């Protein structure tokens, strides 16, 4: 079993968690061009390497950030959403 450490609940089986994709910059739908909007909707970095993602511990519905290596399948760090400041969003 693979273990993920939830910042709230401690180490838990990874089947209790859901991945919600990379932490990326949001764009303003009112000012974005059609091309920018469709790129935002569909395109993905699909990075082979370290990514920063949204994860959720589903039984407690606790959302947090995780850094994960998509090549080695290692979870490098998990941390709670900082109260202020950037989340490290990518484009």
């Amino acid at each position, binding site marked *: 079993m693979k273990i993920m450490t939830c910042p709230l609940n401690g180490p838990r089986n990874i089947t209790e968690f859901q991945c919600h994709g990379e932490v990326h910059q949001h764009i303003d739908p009112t000012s974005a061009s059609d091309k920018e909007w469709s790129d935002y909707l569909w395109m993905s970095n699909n990075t*082979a390497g370290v990514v920063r993602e949204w994860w959720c511990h589903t039984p407690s519905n606790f959302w947090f950030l995780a850094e994960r290596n998509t090549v080695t399948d290692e979870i490098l760090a998990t941390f709670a959403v900082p109260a202020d400041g950037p989340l490290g969003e990518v484009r």
Partner: protein
Amino acid sequence: MVFALLKYGISKRYPARQEVPLTPDLKAHYDVVIIGGGGHGASLAYHLAKHHNIRNVAILEKGYLGGGNTARNTTVIRSNYTDQRSIKFYAKSLRLYESLSNELDYNMMYSRRGQLTLSHSDGVSRSLRLRADAGVFCGEANEILDRKQIKDLVPSLNLDIKGMPILSGLWHRNAAIARHDAVVWGYAIRACERGVELHQRTEVLGMEVANNKVTRIRTNRGDLSAGVVVQCVAGYSSVVAKMVGLKLPIRSYPLQAMVTHPIKPFLDPMVSSTALHCYISQSARGELVIGGGSDPYELYNTRSTLELKEGLAASAVELFPFIGELKVLRQWAGITDMTPDYSPIMGQSPLSNYWLDAGWGTWGFKATPASGFFLAKAIADNRVPEEIRPFPLDRFERFDLVNEMGATAASH
């Protein structure tokens, strides 16, 4: 004995067959460079050389021929999709497969089994009806079976699964399986006979782009240039596209499968259940091939996990309770390049000499002949043929998707 071994082993009258040629030296320029030596790359090279007399072609493969997803799929060949644009494309592929052993003079071990897709709910029954009728409208053989017909077709199937009894099934008579390795070997051998160069262990490290064109390809064996570059790299589509500055609507997930030890033949058709996310067929060797579970998060890693194998085994045992005693013989995963609409991306990229053959997710093997056939035509004529015109990269910005999410049992 020993003398016979020496006599025939060393004799020039009985030379060893070298079907796939050894990797030659890289030339400085090719008319077409294909990145990726899997089924799709080999098929494209073959069709370029055979039908369009484009023979100055190199296939660059970072590992060995057919060692990626061509070796990792579950070899299902079928055309029972939902959208007419897809059905026509996959139907062409099915027709090409049917005569492929003759075409290539190479035994594909092509075996027409038929595929039975099961429904456990009214909603799925309606979607199976839609797929059946859409297929029939396009001239493909599909029919809806009731419980009695299913029992007659697959007597060993457990129809009364607790909580999710089987209600009906989609019977796709012409579905088949084939030897996956033979497909890529056959295409590569016949392509190389026509002058195509296969460069194994040749990894593309980067590409230089100038004036909206790929001008240089850097590999671990030296640099080269090409008139046209095509990427056919399945799970690594996003990684290779990034080398030319392209972002794709693709997310890579591992898809896991396994086979049991061989038993007596009992299962002729392939059986698939979308609700159980499981499909089973019996190989020519008697092994049960069980697929296919998609991992729950993106990954470029072909490891197996206990959770997914356990889930597959649990679903398989629901369908065929008596296989509970069988042991798993082999397990593996392939990296699938999933698109938002579960349809491929074929055609020109925004760069003028760079073509895409990507987004083949869990449906690439069945398309091997047709993708090569149509892409070769597109590249030779510099005009995309009607059959693959629904699948360009820019369909996403036009919101003109080809939704096939419901036509696979592998993942939802």
